[in-house]
């Protein structure tokens, strides 16, 4: 594909993101950005390393609670509170990852799920997390001591900047020397070993990066929605991120974001239908996976490639 077209595509997307709060409700847009970042972080593992984590809510949720607590009780400025949540999620990722990456496939998924349930249990039991109510009334504060985040658009641009930072980090990691080794591991792990790579250490670094960026998403989410709730650490959330990633296209840079947009939009616009929303998203998910296995972005990419290489995929 011609490089110039790609550059213009990115510029258009950037502009679209910048203008979003004028077009749609800012809280909706921020929610989409947070979950898009979460799904993109998840995709670094699933799409680029071949690891299916079923406990990513732990990182999103743990960071959401930490950020919320730091904002509400310690009065930290928002950027520091979010960074604290991110750091905690990365540290959690290091511990969980170090134990989980020894196994692969379904066992890896189950170990990560087990750890996430552990975190869920802690959040339910600990005295300061608010139990069933969650952490309510988190103040947004002023970003960098200058911009009051109580203005929805300012808050949106703050989240947008953080999203771009996280997204850029993931994009860079995917296309770095490290990312090339990850892809090699995904494609053929024994061969990567036979080329002299200690695959466990590469997987662990990918896991920590993914957990950290998931934490960034969780911290931002708590900041802008002004609450952290059990739904952020619940395994439903871990399942939802798998759905978003597959729907949008795993192993594609934009896929998870498209998936997140679609799922959040469906949930929003179908909210009136009550519990039917899960049935409808479920049906959409099944239809998508059956009709286009590569996900929305994956199919579009394949189509574009075909048309540019004259029929050859």
């Amino acid at each position, binding site marked *: 594909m011609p490089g110039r077209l790609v550059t213009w595509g990115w510029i258009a997307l950037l502009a679209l993101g910048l203008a979003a709060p004028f077009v749609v409700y800012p809280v909706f847009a921020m929610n989409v950005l947070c979950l898009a970042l979460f799904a993109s972080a998840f995709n670094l593992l699933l799409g680029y390393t071949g690891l299916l984590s079923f406990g990513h809510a732990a990182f999103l949720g743990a960071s959401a609670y930490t950020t919320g607590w730091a904002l509400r009780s310690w009065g930290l400025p928002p950027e520091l509170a979010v960074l604290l949540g991110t750091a905690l999620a990365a540290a959690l990722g290091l511990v969980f990852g170090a134990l989980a990456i020894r196994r692969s496939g379904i066992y890896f998924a189950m170990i990560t799920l087990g750890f996430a349930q552990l975190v869920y249990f802690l959040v339910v039991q600990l005295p300061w997390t608010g139990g069933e109510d969650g952490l309510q009334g988190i103040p947004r504060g002023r970003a960098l001591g200058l911009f009051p985040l109580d203005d929805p658009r300012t808050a949106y641009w703050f989240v947008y900047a953080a999203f771009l930072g996280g997204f850029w*980090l993931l994009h*860079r*990691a995917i*296309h*770095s*020397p*490290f*990312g*090339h*080794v990850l*892809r*090699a591991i995904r*494609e*053929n792990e*024994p*061969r*990567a*070993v*036979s*080329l*002299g*790579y*200690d*695959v466990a*250490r*590469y997987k662990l*670094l990918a896991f920590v*990066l993914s957990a950290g960026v998931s934490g960034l998403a969780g911290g931002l989410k708590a900041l802008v929605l002004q609450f952290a709730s059990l739904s952020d650490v619940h395994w439903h959330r871990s399942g939802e991120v798998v759905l978003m990633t597959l729907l949008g296209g795993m192993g594609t840079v934009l896929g998870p974001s498209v998936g997140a947009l679609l799922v959040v939009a469906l949930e929003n616009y179908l909210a009136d239908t009550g519990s039917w929303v899960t049935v409808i998203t479920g049906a959409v998910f099944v239809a998508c996976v059956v009709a286009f296995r590569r996900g929305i972005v994956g199919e579009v990419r394949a189509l574009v490639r075909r048309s540019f290489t004259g029929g050859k995929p």
Partner: protein
Amino acid sequence: MDGETILETRELVKAFQGFVAVNGVSLRVARGSIHALIGPNGAGKTTVFNLLTRFLPATRGSILFRGEDITRARPAEIARRGLVRSFQVSAVFPDLTALENVRVALQRGLGTSFHFWRPERSLAVLDARARELLAAVGLEGQEQVTTVELPYGRKRALEIATTLALEPEVMLLDEPTQGMGHEDVGRVVGLIRKVAEGRTVVLVEHNLSVVRDLADRVTVLARGSVLAEGSYDEVSRDPAVLEAYIGASP
């Protein structure tokens, strides 16, 4: 060939829950030689390979590479020391291009493999060497082809180029001609002969004419033990070997 031993196993044993796949195998591979492991199905050839590269841990016995004990080393470390294997089914990275396949092997030398903040461009310094290696195995002009689209014989050639990128002292090739048409077999045999210059090659092979063409020394395994060893002509006349292959037993 100077006859010096580069790779040695001493009384190597591998038992899988009571079933002994490899039973007291002692091998000596001379530096610079092409050494073939042959034997009927289930003789333990691939298991020996997995033990040599530590993809399986040995139950008993020891492995020495350049005189150092590597019995307990990790598989990736064994590869870094210069003992690099291939696999029975072609071991390529299917969704990467041919060039990227070779580059993955080369990039470890840059020492930036954990640098997730470094741009892709930083790998471009390896492209020239990668192209050279691809050309050496007859894959010039195929650099940008996604590997999954290469025909089988080409995949095996790519695999050899990738292995060569590590500049291994010893190459372990597990059935390099398996599943190949006549023409491809000839090409791969030529390739192995070419890459074996200045290196040691150990290969597991079913195709006896390939063994006859290539091997300086042949070890015949049967039921996990060494049945015979010598040049191809010597072992092919050995009555015990004939019996094991034809399956006649008194």
